[in-house]
């Protein structure tokens, strides 16, 4: 770059803006900018673009990302007992929810009638063995309990109880995770 009609190149102006021009060249370019309106205008445009690029917003990574990384980073041995228990409870709850949905569907669709539920018989107890026996007993107990306060047909109360159990398990799962798992991470 020299004085006179020869203008600065964009590359020179950009390098000046980045603060990477050698001392001697920097002085020459700056001196030229004071005398040359087109080059000064070009420099201003680059400054504006530079400012615009610095103002572009960053993507926001949520706290979940940190949680997922830390879950991969921390071996199970480093996790608290409460963390591990609750982490595994989630699987149990999931299994119970699935089983519960199946049982409710069976009762509602008539595959199992309320009498079979009461007697602990039917498809659920036949195919799911001891676990489903317990579930049927629990549903029966819940239904009886509900009937004290909501006098209605047994089938309807079984449905209400089943839904209440599912919602309760879901809420308990979220509560325990918030209380233990997130804190442990």
């Amino acid at each position: 770059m020299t004085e006179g009609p020869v203008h600065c190149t964009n590359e020179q102006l950009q390098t000046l803006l980045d603060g990477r021009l050698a001392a001697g060249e920097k002085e020459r370019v700056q001196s030229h900018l004071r005398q040359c309106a087109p080059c000064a205008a070009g420099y201003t445009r680059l400054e504006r673009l530079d400012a615009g690029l610095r103002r572009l917003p960053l993507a926001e990574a949520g706290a979940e990302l940190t949680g997922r990384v830390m879950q991969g980073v921390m071996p199970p041995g480093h996790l608290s007992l409460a963390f591990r228990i609750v982490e595994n409870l989630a699987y149990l709850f999931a299994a119970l929810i699935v089983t519960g949905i199946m049982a409710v569907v069976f009762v509602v669709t008539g595959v199992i009638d309320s009498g079979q539920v009461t007697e602990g018989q039917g498809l659920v107890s036949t195919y799911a063995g001891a676990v489903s026996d317990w579930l049927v007993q629990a549903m029966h107990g819940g239904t009886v309990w509900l009937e004290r306060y909501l006098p209605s047909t047994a089938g309807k109360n079984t449905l209400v109880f089943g839904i209440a159990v599912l919602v309760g398990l879901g809420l308990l799962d979220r509560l325990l995770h918030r209380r233990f798992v997130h804190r442990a991470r």
Partner: protein
Amino acid sequence: MNAVPKTDAEIIDEVRAGNTRSYAHLVDRHKDRALTLALRLVGARQEAEELVQDAFLKAFRNLGRFRGEARFGTWFYRILYNLCMTRLRRRTTAPQMLEISDETLLDGLPGEDDSIPIEEAFERSDLLGFLSVEMNSLPPQYKSAVTLYYVQELSYEEMAEVMDVPLGTVKTSLFRGRMLLRKRISTRLKKEVKVA
């Protein structure tokens, strides 16, 4: 009284000493910038998040190899950059060619667009949004250079290390990336002037 935040090097020392939980501070410090880089390179948010997560895990597993000669950021962003480029290479069978057919425009005189009121341009939020869109449409090499410079705030030398290219290539990519953006902004403003 505000506590002085720990440096990356101090956190790394803690992690190496067995306080694995401290790694979360490092993740929190770099995750937004890391996600911005990954998002600009691969485009899809979920994919970008997976890559950032993988990069943090890989960095953790290789923390023993980090000698501290470079900044943690430079070392980490190299891991992330490589993961992103590997993903991009898998996605496209043919390498993306540089989209510049009008290089003469890039080398034009600085006063060529004097009629364009770009001085006030970036005061407008819609133009900032347009700049963001145009940034994403740059060829990967230019996009990487511009992002590493403005988001990660790396020096030319650090960028060369992250991108594993010669210093001259970094300068060229950064320069051309910015000139392309400038040209596209100018073109848009010219259209607006014509419409008005």
